[in-house]
């Protein structure tokens, strides 16, 4: 259950809209089902009252939308950002992707978002509604007479279980209390894969990546992927938008995708959230983050505006590429 009520958000949005401080509101709107909450732009008070959604299913990170929305709009845009979203927000500002003056940020606390896949796995298909309670969700489905009580911890998205920070690093106004940077176990899974033998690792990734259908959702949603012309849209690149025809293309796409955001990835976890095939793409990004932290010192992308990303920086005493595997003898 989220700490801040939907009504508080709506009141703030409407008062800012009516006072003319902002001309539009970037928020969540219900999709076809209650759980597919989609990002939406609101400009009308009644629309907000009726359709604005804030619940345990509002996973979308709005930072990337600001790139196109600030260009399209003359007025200010009100945006609601969860703590992890503010890191992406800062990273985009660092890269001068939008005008800070055109955005009004309200930071909202987040208690973690639900992974619909996990919820379906637990209570089955045919989800009709979910009522947030103190401990979890009261879920009704088409196929059960009684609502099912679900423990929120068992259905939280992976990125939320290993939440890296509940602290907002950017905002104009904060609803609720200031959070803390958390100690998370987010690199445990990466370490587990690293400890496998090369054959096991290869089999693991072959199994995961072979499910890829190249829908490009991971690229489209990624707040770090904001190039106007993308290498994957280039028809002569050999990896343009089409289903991978063999295992090489899968690996090529995913290595290059992860490499392009290496050092700039804030680990918001959107790539894994949107993947229709449930490929754990965050494990590729986290591998880069873990390596960067280990090789070049702790670095959290988006923590402050203007910081230099590790791959556009160097140090005379950096470790040599041949020393990368020192101390790792899983061969």
């Amino acid at each position: 259950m989220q700490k801040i009520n939907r009504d508080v958000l709506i009141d703030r949005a409407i008062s800012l809209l009516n006072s003319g401080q902002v001309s539009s509101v970037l928020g969540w709107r219900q999709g076809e089902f209650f759980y597919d909450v989609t990002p939406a732009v609101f400009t009308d008070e009644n629309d907000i009252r009726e359709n604005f959604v804030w619940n345990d299913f509002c996973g979308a990170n709005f930072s990337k939308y600001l790139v196109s929305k600030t260009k399209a709009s003359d007025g200010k845009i009100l945006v609601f950002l969860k703590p992890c979203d503010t890191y992406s927000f800062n990273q985009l500002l660092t890269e001068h992707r939008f005008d800070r003056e055109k955005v009004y940020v309200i930071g909202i606390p987040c208690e973690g978002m639900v992974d619909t896949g996990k919820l379906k796995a637990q209570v089955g298909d045919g989800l009709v509604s979910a009522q947030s309670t103190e401990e979890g969700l009261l879920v009704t489905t088409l196929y059960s007479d009684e609502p099912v009580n679900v423990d929120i911890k068992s259905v939280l998205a992976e990125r939320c279980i290993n939440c890296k920070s509940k602290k907002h690093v950017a905002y104009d106004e904060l609803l609720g209390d200031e959070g803390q940077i958390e100690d998370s176990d987010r690199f445990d899974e990466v370490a587990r894969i690293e400890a496998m033998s090369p054959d096991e690792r290869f089999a693991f990734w072959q199994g995961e990546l072979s499910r890829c259908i190249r829908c490009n959702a991971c690229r489209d949603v990624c707040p770090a992927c904001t190039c106007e012309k993308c290498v994957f849209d280039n028809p002569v690149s050999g990896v343009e938008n089409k289903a991978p025809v063999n295992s090489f293309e899968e690996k090529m796409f995913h290595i290059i995708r992860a490499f392009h955001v290496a050092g700039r990835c804030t680990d918001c976890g959107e790539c894994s959230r949107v993947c229709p095939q449930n490929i754990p793409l965050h494990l590729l990004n986290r591998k880069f983050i873990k390596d960067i932290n280990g090789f070049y010192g702790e670095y959290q992308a988006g923590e402050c505006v203007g910081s230099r990303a590790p791959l556009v920086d160097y140090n005379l005493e950096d470790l040599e590429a041949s020393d990368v595997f020192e101390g790792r003898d899983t061969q």
Partner: protein
Amino acid sequence: MQVNKYRPLIVAFCCNWCSYAGADLAGNNRLNYPADVKIIRVPCSCRVNPSFVLRAFQRGADGVIICGCHPGDCHYTSGNYYTRRRMALLFSMLDYLGIERERTRLEWVSAAEGAKFAATMNDFAEQVAALGENKRLEDLRCKR
């Protein structure tokens, strides 16, 4: 006569200002290095995009080696420092995906080090030959 003895195909990205001249020097000094090494001249080791390495594997390379100027000697002041970070991360990522780590290498070879160039290539070719054909990053459409 040995027929169809396995020979690895090795792609070497060599910096125009150092390793490429180093290869020249190795030739002038009549130092042997395997003919399996195909040299691609690049203006700086920093020119080597990580996707070039993957692309080389796709087109049938069994090993990829990148040669640049020693740290501090870059013709463009700092190119090789960026290469060093990039390739460290790329090699680590390839290893993470289960690709044999012996197939990739980054080496600093100056224009004066003809002997080092030949020794490096001999050593790398031997190392790759011991692994055999590149099966994990191959693209069947590009098979010769």
